[in-house]
């Protein structure tokens, strides 16, 4: 796959995350019972940034959760290779909390479906909202994001690659083909 173009550079990403954070605080009327849960990989790093931004804006510390959805995938029968299992790390009880799920790219929606199952196995949240950096369309399940950084219409032959500084050295969203 080759890079077709840069969809978002690091400033675009920062501005989007800033706006998403404000939208989350606006819609939920503040930080009461808010828990930000990032989906590994990369969703978790974005979640950390949102938490930091919330702290800068409201002066409050919100609990962070890290979710690994590997065990809830719907495509095990097809995989010959076992995906690397990482830890789910959610220290707080999710019951009655407002969970904001964070992921980098929303595509078929199956990852989010798995994340919902994983979260509900942990307790009974008051509500779950979804924040994504990029929505690239092509949903296979009735799933929608509440907060979107950027809508990018794509074809199935293309791929949206999100690079995050902590993992990939730089912040960038690329369109590949």
């Amino acid at each position, binding site marked *: 796959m080759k890079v077709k173009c840069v969809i978002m550079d690091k400033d675009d990403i920062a501005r989007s995350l800033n706006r998403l954070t404000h939208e989350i605080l606006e819609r939920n009327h503040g930080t009461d019972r808010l828990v930000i849960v990032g989906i590994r990989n990369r969703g978790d790093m974005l979640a950390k940034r949102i938490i930091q931004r919330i702290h800068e804006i409201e002066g409050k510390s919100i609990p962070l959760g890290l979710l*690994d959805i590997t*065990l*809830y995938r719907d495509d*095990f*029968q097809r*995989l*010959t*290779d*076992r*995906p*690397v*299992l*990482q*830890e*789910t790390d959610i220290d707080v009880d999710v019951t009655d909390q407002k969970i904001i799920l964070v992921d980098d790219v929303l595509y078929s929606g199956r990852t989010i479906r798995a994340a919902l*199952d994983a979260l509900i*196995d*942990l*307790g009974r949240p008051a509500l779950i909202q979804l924040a994504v950096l990029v929505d690239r369309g092509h949903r296979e399940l009735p799933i929608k994001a509440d907060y979107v950084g950027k809508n990018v219409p794509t074809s199935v032959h293309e791929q949206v690659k999100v690079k995050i500084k902590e993992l990939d050295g730089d912040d960038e969203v690329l369109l590949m083909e």
Partner: protein
Amino acid sequence: MQLESRHLLGLEGVPRKDITMILDTAVSFKKVLDRPIPKVPTLRGKTVANLFFEPSTRTRFSFELAEKRLSADTVNFSAAGSSLSKGETLKDTARNIEAMKIDFVVMRHSAPGAPHFLSKCLNSAVINAGDGAHEHPTQGLLDMMTMRETFQSLQDIKVVIVGDIQHSRVARSNIYGLLTMGAKVGVCGPSTLIPRDIENLGVTVYPAIEDALAEADVLNILRIQLERQKKALFPTLREYRNLFGITRDRLDRSGRDITIMHPGPINRGVELDSDVADGDYSVILDQVTNGVAVRMAVLYLLGGGRQKIEGDDHAA
């Protein structure tokens, strides 16, 4: 990521990266066990047959629990009252299992090599839950997981296995696994119960328990079985305890902090005293918890279970 073998028949020859993979995966599964709903849907639709031709409580419970926690369906065959008592051969039992399209077989048998035999006649993935005195790989793995929790790494830690090494599949799996992971392994027990030439495996033989206590970071204490006494392999349980029993006194005299492990069930007051078994350095109950996590990891990593062959219905 994938294990090299389709089965888990022993730890002998299992590469270091595979053992590491299993132990790392087990850590994640251990967290699942702490949740309000300690269950994941990963093996939903898969069937595991637990074939225990030798009696077992803890290993069978542990496997069954691991299977259920992964949402698999379990079926149990135990030797008593089964077709085996009617004289059915192992091969025929295997063929019947095959015809029922079982994904995983967990097997304990008194004949060494029985699971290896079964793995050749079945498309199912086979997990050895103990074959005679040969190996008990999941016990070896859970022991290593427990040691890793205390010491962070298995490299260069000194583990001494105490007791009836000769008849112990736990000892053998521990030896193979620990040596692969770079630990230093020793054995200690009555000379009648230590296999001749065991040093050829790379293991140190400690003649007296005090020598072992002077060097060991971990003691893995094996159950001494009454049946062996009847075969005159050691005089009395009391003499065994006097010479090799792990007591508070002995440990204090060594002046060292040694982690205490035991695969269970414990003969309290024989190979291990209660105050030590229930004391601060004992990780025996952690071993039991880790057992479920390790078995979940093994089931998860052995892939989809059955090899896909022509004529199999497509997976749902």
